[in-house]
């Protein structure tokens, strides 16, 4: 062997009821490398890292840290071993400041009157500031968490690890919640951490990120380790095929669209949220049979509210929604479902499924009240079972105990497959897909796209709302771009480039005067979106890093690095977050 590993996990096996999450997995991680864990949803990446972070104990196998065999009993123990983890869902106290969140549990203490210990917040602030500058993280210690955006919150999480002197940093799907510009910035930070000698483990299913920053990559499939690859020598296609276990195509094949009659006609739609803030402004569009109309936009610009208003979950202030020639503006949710709307909501765990229902109960959530499930108010269990068995088979929904599995115990990807399958099976003339592939892996994404296009070819009208430009460019026949609640542009997909869509998304109205500023952020976007084509990406990220580095040198301009990097996007995101918080009330 000879080689020194900082982390070794040998022959790890972990079982959960009905499922083997990790099956004899061995990984060895060198000090100072970026090691990616790649795999589909439910492949066992997060479980493996949860064991390294002390949240679970492996059923079999051993863990070695710096060559010493250890039994990691708790996250606190992991922290003492210099292991840190940034979770997918941040664990921050939202009304505390950045510094308070970071030092919590190991606050610097000073003695008042020589005996009464109190938290030395001044020292905490200056410590955090110094730490933040050292790693180029650009956070302001005195900001309150609820006032800063998601990407800054993530940097606070990173600082939390660094403050605890973590040497081994685990990132669980760190880019899932970020915009393309923020992703660029984060990846630069991660590279910077490697240069400072940290070891980084990156859990992800996004190939282009791995290609951009990782040194080596372990591929997991259904709990088993498939291969460990040198990223520089492997193409993304090979990685994707290994991960999914079969050939995948990046480009979705589709026939030219064949529009029929108008199915959905939305005119002058105005929607206000609970805070009386206008989130949708005078929006009008039509979706035809056999058409995929995609609404592109940065998160929180009113696109989700449009979907909610059409599905009846949000009241309409004024305007008209017409489905197949029938005015449904005032109809109830149930009436709309019956008249022909399928809806795959953005928030799948709070809306799409009842988490504590079984799979078979959830698969009938939209039609349990109809034959054959229900006769004269009585339910027929066999009909539920049969429906569930058919959908599980058809949509490849994987779960521990089949129809009887409680949905809460299923992986997010399989929950989504269940929702997509259920909604498609309704065979509604109008199908609304909101972020249908968020958090899913390539195999599942490809699958959902194929199903969506198949439905289009069957003559359904499809309204697709997505934050992923790739998805929109790949699937849409018509693209509508929304900014700040207003539709900026509706055009057929062929007539718009990714760049142009991006400009409309930023609210920059495609004018020569603004080209120079907008162009730059677009380049970044392009790089993030279009995977591993290479050259342009590398050049751009270099520039980005420099920008980030520079701004951190001066304290006063610490905030600026963000502004510079994220350009127009920042304003929009901040606002989006605010609206979203309000909407949840």
């Amino acid at each position, binding site marked *: 062997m000879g080689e020194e590993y900082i982390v070794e996990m040998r022959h790890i096996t972990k079982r959960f009821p009905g499922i083997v999450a990790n099956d004899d997995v061995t990984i060895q991680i060198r000090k100072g490398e970026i090691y990616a864990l790649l795999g589909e949803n439910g492949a066992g990446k997060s479980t493996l890292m949860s064991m390294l972070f002390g949240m679970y104990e492996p059923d079999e196998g051993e863990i070695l840290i710096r060559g010493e065999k250890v039994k990691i009993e708790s996250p606190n123990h992991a922290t003492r071993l210099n292991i840190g983890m940034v979770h997918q869902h941040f664990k921050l106290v939202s009304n505390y400041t950045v510094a308070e969140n970071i030092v919590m549990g190991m606050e610097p203490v000073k003695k008042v009157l020589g005996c009464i210990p109190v938290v030395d917040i001044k020292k905490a602030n200056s410590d955090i500031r110094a730490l933040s500058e050292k790693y180029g993280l650009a956070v302001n210690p005195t900001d309150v968490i609820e006032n800063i955006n998601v990407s800054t919150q993530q940097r606070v999480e990173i600082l939390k690890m660094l403050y605890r002197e973590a040497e081994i940093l685990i990132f669980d799907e760190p880019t899932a919640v970020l915009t393309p510009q923020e992703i660029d910035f984060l990846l630069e930070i991660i590279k910077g951490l490697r240069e400072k000698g940290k070891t980084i483990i990156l859990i992800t299913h996004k190939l282009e990120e791995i290609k951009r920053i990782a040194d080596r990559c372990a591929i997991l499939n259904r709990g088993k380790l498939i291969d460990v690859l040198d990223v520089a020598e492997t193409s993304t296609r090979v990685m994707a095929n290994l991960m999914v276990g079969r050939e995948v195509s990046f480009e979705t094949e589709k026939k030219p669209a064949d529009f029929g009659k108008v199915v959905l006609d939305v005119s002058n739609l105005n929607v206000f949220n609970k805070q009386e803030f206008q989130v949708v402004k005078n929006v009008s569009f039509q979706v035809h049979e056999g058409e995929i109309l995609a609404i592109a936009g940065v998160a929180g610009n009113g696109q989700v509210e449009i979907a909610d208003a059409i599905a009846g979950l949000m009241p309409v202030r004024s305007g008209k929604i017409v489905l197949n020639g029938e005015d449904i503006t005032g109809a109830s949710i149930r009436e709309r479902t019956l008249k022909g709307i399928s809806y795959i909501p953005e928030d799948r765990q709070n809306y*799409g499924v009842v988490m504590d229902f079984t799979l078979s109960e959830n698969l009938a959530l939209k039609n349990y009240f109809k034959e054959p499930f229900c006769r004269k108010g009585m339910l027929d269990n066999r009909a539920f079972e049969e429906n569930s068995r058919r959908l599980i088979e058809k949509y490849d929904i994987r779960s521990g105990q089949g129809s009887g599995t409680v949905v809460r115990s299923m992986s997010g990807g399989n929950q989504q497959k269940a929702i997509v399958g259920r909604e498609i099976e309704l065979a509604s003339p109008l199908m609304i897909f909101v972020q249908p592939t968020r958090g899913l892996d390539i195999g599942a994404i490809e699958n959902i796209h194929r199903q969506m296009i198949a439905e289009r070819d069957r003559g359904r009208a499809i309204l697709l709302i997505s934050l992923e430009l790739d998805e929109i460019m790949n699937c849409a026949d018509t693209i509508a771009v929304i900014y700040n609640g207003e539709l900026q542009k509706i055009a057929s997909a062929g007539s718009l480039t990714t760049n142009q869509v991006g400009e409309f998304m930023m609210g920059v109205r495609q004018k020569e005067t603004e080209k120079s500023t907008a162009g730059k952020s677009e380049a970044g976007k392009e790089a993030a979106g279009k995977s591993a084509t290479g050259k342009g990406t590398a050049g751009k990220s270099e520039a980005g890093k420099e920008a980030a580095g520079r701004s951190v040198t001066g304290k006063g301009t610490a905030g600026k690095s963000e502004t510079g990097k994220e350009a127009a996007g920042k304003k929009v995101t901040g606002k989006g977050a605010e609206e979203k918080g309000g909407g949840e009330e």
Partner: protein
Amino acid sequence: MKNKNKIWNAVKIPLLAILCSLVAAGVIIALTGSNPFRAYYALLQGSGLAPKAAYANYKSMLTDLFSYVNYFTPMIFAALAVAVALRAGLFNIGVSGQMLAAGFTATVLVGYSGLGAVAAKPLVILIGMVVGGLAGALVGFLKYRFNINEVVSTIMLNYIFQYVISFLINTYFVDPVSRQSVEVSAASRLTLMDTQAGNLKIDIPLGILVALAAVVLVWILFDKTKLGYELKAVGFSRSAARYAGIRVGRCMVLSMTISGMLAGLAGVTYYLGYMGSIQPKVLLNTGFDAIAVSLLGSNNPFGIIFSTMLISLISKGSTYMRSTAGVDTEIASVITGIILLFSACSAYIRHRLERRRSEKAQTAKEDR
């Protein structure tokens, strides 16, 4: 096979909790200087589940058993009431108040009316359901229309019922000797008191038949009906239920109405069955104990039968336990408390058990 396993899984934790608490309570009894085995046996004897050494005239083990059934019938209804609301995500703390309202109304309208038994008894049950249902519906409506937390409104309604009704009793219906409400007519009683059977005089509770029917109906409601599916969906996730097109407000009102109806039945089987009169200014503990009984029975209608029988057994047998085993009646409350405490810890116990199982698998592997 699979089904059996499922039942075993649901039952084993409460069983373990009960076993642990009996051991713990046994230690306490031993510390007070009595024999725990004798004390427990006395509990069974007092409830007619084991023969006593001697019986008075017209009494036997059978009379004790019937009086035990008579005693726990209201609790089955009350625990079902709690369970129905809980399944739909609502917390009905007002079972006692709803019991009182239903019991009082039935007492005044039927108990003092002089109607014949054939008309009176069904009418009492009907009035109990209607009044309890209305009281529950009010809470559901306040929640749905004005978003008033059901915990607050039920507690407040408890006070209102308690004091308004005790005012009415003290003003119009008080029995000057017992200082309770005047006893209801035998025709309207849901328990046939002192019925001669052979050489025995037995209290025959008719309410238990209704209670068992209610258990089956509640089970059917939640396991087999569309409404039950909707109520459960609302209980688990209001947002997802709304997304599915379920009318959430209607479900909340309905579940509180059903819960109230069951509480009303608890009221009439208590005040017009077990007791026969109402003590003013006293709110029964039944409605509060029912929360714990329901939890001990895992909110399952059939589980509730057993948890009700267990908890009632302890309080019912406590008098006999004092007289024969010399254990204070207060110890009975201690045992009940310990059982409920342990069953409340059941989530933790389950976690420990699973952890130990995985550790065992680990050591077994290493040994090999």
